[in-house]
């Protein structure tokens, strides 16, 4: 699995993951009310919801900005591992939310993943699969140590320090 530590792969995955998070944040930041409606439909945030203490609107206001900040950090490489850790935590949260609505049979109609208007995809197995893919990318960025450019050409891999 030496190729996993190739710096180019690490770089591409980091930037790709960051770009996905930035893209996902834009429409939500531009249309907070539409996103808040979608959050509310998950029945996880709100006064009599599973997480009753978190108002759906406060969650809908903060989440897209967290996605945006995490995305920018992943793209620029600043505090990359910390950003990847938060990205992984967010994806676990999304997986729980999607699993919850599928388990409860709640029709959210629009998952609110990338866009908030028009026809959106609902919660389903394809969404679970794509979230798992993104989670794998986040864990990769978080856990794998790429070889440095200098050591990439060396015969012996640098021991993880």
């Amino acid at each position: 699995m030496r190729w996993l530590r190739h710096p180019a792969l690490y770089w591409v995955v980091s930037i790709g993951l960051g770009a996905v998070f930035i893209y996902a944040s834009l429409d939500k930041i531009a249309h907070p009310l539409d996103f808040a409606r979608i959050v509310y439909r998950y029945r996880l945030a709100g006064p009599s919801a599973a997480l009753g203490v978190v108002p759906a609107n406060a969650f809908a206001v903060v989440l897209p900005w967290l996605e945006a900040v995490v995305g920018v950090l992943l793209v620029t490489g600043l505090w990359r591992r910390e950003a990847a850790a938060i990205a992984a935590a967010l994806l676990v949260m999304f997986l729980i939310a999607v699993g919850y609505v599928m388990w409860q049979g709640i029709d959210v109609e629009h998952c609110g993943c990338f866009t908030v208007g028009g026809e959106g995809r609902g919660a389903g197995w394809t969404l679970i699969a794509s979230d798992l893919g993104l989670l794998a990318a986040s864990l990769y960025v978080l856990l794998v140590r790429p070889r440095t450019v200098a050591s990439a050409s060396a015969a012996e891999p640098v021991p993880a320090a």
Partner: protein
Amino acid sequence: MPVRVGRIAVILLAATGVGLAWNALSGQGLALTRNAYVRAGDEEITAKEARARLDKGILFLDARPVAFYEMSHIPGALPLPEDDFDKHFAKLEPRLRSSFDIVVYCSGFGCEASHLVARKLKERGIPAVVLSEGWPAWTEAGYPTREGAQP
């Protein structure tokens, strides 16, 4: 290069700060402690308060589609479905204009009909409040329901 918890905290705080600032300054800010269906001017009451009003003989309106009303509704409530508002409103108008403290409800989460109906009534000069979380809040509290087309 280990993950530093302090940095994670900084990222979370920064995102929260920017989010709240954007919400305050963007001109389309949301009321943070409420849900997306509530607008300024809307009044919501709890199921407990609604129960007390029902016992006092206050008029209840069911904003869900009529099929839901016929399956089960709050005893005494009249159907005023949001998807067929004008027809039902014309029929009910005299009764509505002579009622006070009207309570509107619908299916709770994901249902905006009660808020829309309450606003339409207000536009017509009839004050109405919304039962917060609607039908689920009512049934989960164990309050009475009635089946069929009769109020």
